[in-house]
């Protein structure tokens, strides 16, 4: 479906995450777990990059679910990945990765100027931390950070925070959604990124 979407819209698709029972090296995960794989599809419908979520959400949260143990279902990935596109080198990350600054530094060292963070933040953690974490990663690395999010009351009983957003390399929220499903369409201006990277080269000295 995602490859068909890319072909139909003639665009790149950064496909959030999908559970895959096969590792990038084609070996099968024998213990019944899967990997949370973030696939990148080019406009011709070819899968051209894959990142498997490294940091799994094993936490306790004060919400209706209370205890999350992603590691019981998912095997962690083990290496960062970027997708080289005609418009930018895009670093790949997923949700809970956002709390691990080194992952973003690794992506920046691989040339990323845009970083994708497909997310499903819980309401308590999202309300308290999501925007601050997005801004921090953008500022530290002088990159655009883009998060498409889950939002609302899910039929599984989960409740997610929403607030999909795009943050500039200066740390400003360029635009965001609130709690409802929807689309956010906007322009990224790389001349702004070049200026910020030249003026404040801290991202290069981490």
């Amino acid at each position: 479906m995602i490859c068909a979407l890319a072909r139909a819209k003639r665009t790149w698709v950064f496909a959030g995450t999908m559970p895959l029972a096969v590792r990038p090296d084609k070996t099968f995960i024998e213990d019944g777990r899967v990997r949370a794989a973030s696939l990148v599809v080019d406009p011709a419908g070819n899968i051209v990059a894959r990142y498997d979520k490294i940091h799994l959400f094993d936490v306790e949260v004060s919400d209706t679910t209370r205890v999350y143990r992603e590691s019981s279902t998912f095997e962690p990935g083990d290496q960062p990945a970027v997708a080289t596109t005609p418009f930018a080198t895009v670093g790949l990350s997923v949700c809970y990765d956002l709390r691990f600054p080194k992952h973003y530094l690794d992506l920046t060292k691989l040339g990323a100027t845009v970083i994708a963070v497909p997310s499903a933040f819980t309401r308590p953690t999202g309300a308290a931390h999501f925007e601050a974490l997005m801004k921090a990663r953008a500022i530290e690395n002088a990159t655009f950070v883009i998060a498409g999010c889950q939002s609302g009351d899910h039929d599984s009983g989960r409740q997610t925070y929403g607030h999909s957003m795009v943050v500039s390399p200066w740390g400003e929220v360029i635009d965001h959604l609130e709690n409802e499903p929807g689309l956010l369409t906007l322009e990224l201006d790389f001349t702004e990124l070049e200026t910020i990277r030249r003026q404040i080269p801290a991202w290069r000295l981490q």
Partner: protein
Amino acid sequence: MRDRRVTEAGAAQAVSKCRVTVVQMTSSHNVTTSLNQLDALVREVEPSSVDAIFLPENFAALASSDVVSIG
């Protein structure tokens, strides 16, 4: 829009601007329901109107009890 630029990281920055669409959804544990929602949301995106579409985590199913079958 397609002039090549070089960042201080040394990587080629292919364009000076690009246009992206970000999708926010309320995925179901049912794959068909989730993909139908995604299809409805992106229907308004005209072909070639954006450089990239960014989907959320677990777009095809959230908290499904049968994750292997999704992929």
